């Protein structure tokens, strides 16, 4: 911080007050009310600590486990807990179970996040491991049942938690999208958002003046610590994150929940609570920030690009999102959260209670978190297949008033399956397939205009093959016309073309 402000109180002074039962602790919601009624100056003088909390899906979460040695011992090279793979690039019986790892038998229904919840709940977990066997670790296979009590360590270490805020999501396309932002209805049918907004800990210390490495926190119902900036930490744009750790054995499954996002994958809902010491008026100000002061972009998840390239549909605030309705264009669209405001409130209450009871003391960070960090995209330096690399440029087309019989003859002669239909301006207006023609002949239809599909799924020359292949699979089509800005057909791409290209480039035998 360049601007210095007068210090009101130190962490040591606050801890003394906690010891004597004199500390004034408010939840973030209570602080907002006090600042509104009495002003920031008074709030800063009166309040020692503001408790903030959040409860949401935090994919970059996981737990380090030590299983202990069996006899004879095994150097586990592959390991599963309830059929969910555990990362084994560590010492013999150490592993890391990530929240998004999928069960190899139950798919999207069950994964790492669920195993973590089951461990915390004290449930029995199937442990299976394999090895190649060595002189010192002769065992090659193990299958047994464990509970969290059998583990030497179960330490939650989450590389990225507690996003300060998060872009909201909507969907411009004509079909339902199933994303990590939940179910997105077609034609801007709804908006989903994440983050606790005015209760979020990083919003409450917006300038990173009080929290840092070593800050003691509420984590999953137990005690945890901030161990550094989280991955993708981008505080200068309001997207700060935290890396945290805590002893899983002390935690509570109420605040650690395995979750599945339909047709997307699995994750872990994590509860994080952080005490914000009101050391000066500036911290008092950020601790009083309201939902209507925190801007959020709504992005179009209908565009399958990387997050920051998805078009911004509108900028709103957490207050608008939380009201249940936002306006997009002329339309009023329902909005709802993915993270629980109710649980975030509960966590800030629990943390407040701990402090008031004198069982939770504040720590002074040993190092602050960076206030600036570049967030770079991944540059792809190898040439990648685009539509133009695999499409055929010689396209056989037809006109809507062409006869079915003639069209059928043409596709037989050319050995093709798809016939784009164009108008007199050469613009694409429909498509017929060999199957359409067979059916048309069987039903005695005469002209292509009677049978052609008018809503044509198309591709562009510079689109990635992966994106277009997915589109073809979604619409269950085997050929897709490639068009330019004027809707003129410049090529055609079929599943045959794609498989030929991909076999040529990606497979190494």
């Amino acid at each position, binding site marked *: 911080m360049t601007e210095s402000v007068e210090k009101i109180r130190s962490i040591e002074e606050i801890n003394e007050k906690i010891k004597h039962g004199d500390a004034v602790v408010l939840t973030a919601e209570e602080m907002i009310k006090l600042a509104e009624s009495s002003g920031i100056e008074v709030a800063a003088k009166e309040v020692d600590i503001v408790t903030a909390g959040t*409860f*949401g*899906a935090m994919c970059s979460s996981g737990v380090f486990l030590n299983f202990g040695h069996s006899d004879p011992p095994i150097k586990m090279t592959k390991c599963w807990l309830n059929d969910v793979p555990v990362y084994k690039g560590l010492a013999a019986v150490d592993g890391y179970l990530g929240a998004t790892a999928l069960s190899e038998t139950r798919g999207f229904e069950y994964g790492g996040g669920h195993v973590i919840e089951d461990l915390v709940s004290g449930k029995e977990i199937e442990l299976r491991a394999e090895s190649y066997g060595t002189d010192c670790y002769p065992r090659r296979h193990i299958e047994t049942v464990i509970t969290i009590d059998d583990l030497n360590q179960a330490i939650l270490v989450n590389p990225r938690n507690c996003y300060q805020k998060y872009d909201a999501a909507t969907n411009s396309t004509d079909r339902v999208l199933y994303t990590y932002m*939940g*179910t*997105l*209805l077609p034609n801007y049918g*709804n*908006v*989903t958002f994440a983050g606790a907004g005015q209760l979020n800990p990083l919003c409450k210390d917006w300038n990173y003046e009080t929290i840092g490495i070593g800050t003691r926190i509420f984590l999953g119902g137990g005690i945890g610590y901030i161990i550094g900036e989280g991955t993708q930490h981008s505080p200068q744009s309001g997207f700060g994150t935290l890396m945290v750790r805590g002893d899983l054995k002390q935690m509570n499954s109420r605040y650690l*929940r*395995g*979750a*599945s*996002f*339909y047709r997307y994958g699995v*994750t872990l*809902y994590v509860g994080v609570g952080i005490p914000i010491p009101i050391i000066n008026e500036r911290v008092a100000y950020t601790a009083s920030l309201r939902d209507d002061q925190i801007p959020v972009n709504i992005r179009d998840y209908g565009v399958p690009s990387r997050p920051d390239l998805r078009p911004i549909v509108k900028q709103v605030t957490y207050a608008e999102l939380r009201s*249940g309705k936002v306006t997009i264009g002329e339309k009023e*669209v*329902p*909005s*709802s*959260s*993915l*993270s*629980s*405001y*109710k*649980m975030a*409130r509960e966590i800030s209450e629990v943390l407040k209670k701990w402090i008031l009871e004198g069982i939770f003391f504040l720590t002074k960070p040993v190092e602050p978190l960076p206030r600036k960090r570049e967030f770079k995209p991944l540059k792809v330096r190898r040439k990648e297949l685009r539509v133009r690399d695999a499409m055929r440029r010689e396209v056989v087309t037809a006109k809507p008033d062409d006869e079915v019989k003639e069209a059928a003859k043409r596709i037989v002669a050319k050995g093709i399956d798809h016939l784009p239909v164009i108008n007199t301006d050469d613009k694409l207006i429909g498509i017929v397939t060999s199957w359409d023609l067979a059916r048309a002949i069987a039903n005695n239809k005469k002209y292509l205009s009677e049978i052609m599909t008018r809503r044509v799924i198309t591709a562009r020359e510079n689109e990635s093959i992966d994106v277009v292949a997915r589109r073809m699979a979604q619409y269950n089509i085997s050929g897709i016309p490639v068009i330019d800005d004027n809707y003129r057909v410049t090529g055609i791409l079929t599943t045959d073309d794609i498989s030929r290209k991909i076999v040529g480039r990606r497979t190494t035998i």
Partner: protein
Amino acid sequence: MRVRLIYSPDVVEKPILAEAVLKTGLPINILEAKVNAQKGELVVSIPSTGKKLEEVLKIFKEAGVQIQKFTEILQIDYERCTSCGACISPCPTQALKFGPDWTLEFDEEKCVACRTCVNACPVKAMSLP
């Protein structure tokens, strides 16, 4: 009251619902519709009770439409539900919302048992028989 109306092939093309609306003056709301040339199935909400409701149902019965009482009721396991809200905005009939203390609330009368929320729930707290 919500009912499921099942139209047989003989009556599927007749404007029975429109007639019922005109005759009774009740704004019957179609919550869900699956109609093709062979058959039709509608879930409708009839904003009425007692005698008037009987009158509407009679119109459908006499026109050859089979009436089923709506029995699918969404169950929410509040032990698992975290009131996150992931089910709220995807619900096509706005049957789910937050109460004053941000607890998830369910309005049975609006629900059409479409299962959208069952799929959207991250912690599998919703179920339908």
